[in-house]
C-alpha cells in the first residue's frame, strides 16, 4: 500500500490546517478528524505534527488561540485564522499549484501537456 511520506507533505501541513480553519474555528481533534475524513484515511496527521504546527502558526501570528466552551467538563482550545494566516494560505496555494505543475511535467504526460499550454 502506497502511503504519504511525511517528508513530502511536511511543507504543507500548515496549509492543510489553515485551509480547515478558514472554514471556521476549530480545535485539535476536530481538525485531525476532518483531515482523515476528507482524504478518506489516506492522510492521518500525527498528534505531534498537528500540535507542533499549531505552535508554529501561533508564533507567526497566522492563527490565534482561545478557550472555547466546555465539552464533557473540559475546556477546549479553539484556533482562529488571522488575516495574516489567510494571506499566507493563499500564497501557499499559489506555491503548490506551481510545484504541482513542475512535478507533473516529470510524472504525468497529460499534466506536462497542460503545463506547456499554460506557458
Amino acid at each position: 500500500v502506497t502511503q504519504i511520506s511525511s517528508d513530502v507533505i511536511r511543507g504543507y501541513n500548515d496549509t492543510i490546517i489553515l485551509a480547515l480553519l478558514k472554514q471556521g474555528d476549530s480545535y485539535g481533534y476536530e481538525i485531525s478528524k476532518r483531515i482523515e475524513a476528507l482524504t478518506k484515511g489516506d492522510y492521518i496527521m500525527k498528534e505531534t505534527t498537528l500540535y507542533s504546527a499549531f505552535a508554529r502558526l501561533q508564533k507567526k501570528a497566522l492563527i490565534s488561540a482561545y478557550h472555547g466552551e466546555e465539552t464533557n467538563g473540559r475546556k477546549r482550545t479553539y484556533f482562529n485564522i488571522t488575516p495574516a494566516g489567510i494571506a499566507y494560505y493563499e500564497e501557499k496555494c499559489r506555491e503548490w499549484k506551481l510545484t504541482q505543475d513542475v512535478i507533473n511535467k516529470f510524472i504525468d504526460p497529460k499534466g506536462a501537456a497542460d503545463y506547456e499550454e499554460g506557458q
Partner: protein
Amino acid sequence: MEILKNYVDAMFKEFPNNTETAELKTRILDSMEAKFQDLLEDGKNESEALGTVIAQFGDIEELKEAYEVPVEEKEEDFEFVEEKSERLFAVTMPLSIAAFLIIGFVWGYWFWALIPITALVSVSLTQRDSIFSVTMPLAIAIFLALGQWFGLWHPAWIIIPTTALITTAISALFGGKV
C-alpha cells in the same frame, strides 16, 4: 484512560515543568482520548484502539523543536564509568574486608590499609583514560616492593593515599578528568 496519561507523561518528561507544557499535554491527551473513544465506537477492541492512538501520536522530537525544548547533554560516558565502578566496588570491597579479617584473625596482623588500598585500586581501574591509571599502579608497585623486600609495609602504605591526593590535585590544576 490511565495508560494514555502515563504515555503522554513519559513522552513529555524532557519538557520544562510549566503551564505551557501542562496545557499542551492536556490538549494532546484530550485528542488522544477522544480518538480512543471514537475507535471503540467504531467497534475496535481496547487494545486495537490503544495501539492505533499510540501509533498516531507521532515523534516527540517534532514538538521539542516547535517548543524549543533545549536538547539535554547526554552524559553517557560519565554514567558508564560510574556504573562500571559501582559494579567493580560491589565485588572488590567485600573481598577486601574478608581478606582483612582473615589475615587479622589467622596471622594476627591487622592489615587495615588493605581496605583503602582496594578502594583506590578499584577507582584507578575504572579511570583508564585519566592520569590515575598511570600513577596508582606505580604507587602500588612501590608499596608492594618496599613491603616485600624491606619489610616496610608501614610506613610505605602512606605512598598510596598520598599519590591519590597528589594525582587529584594535579588533575584539578590542569583541568584534566579525575
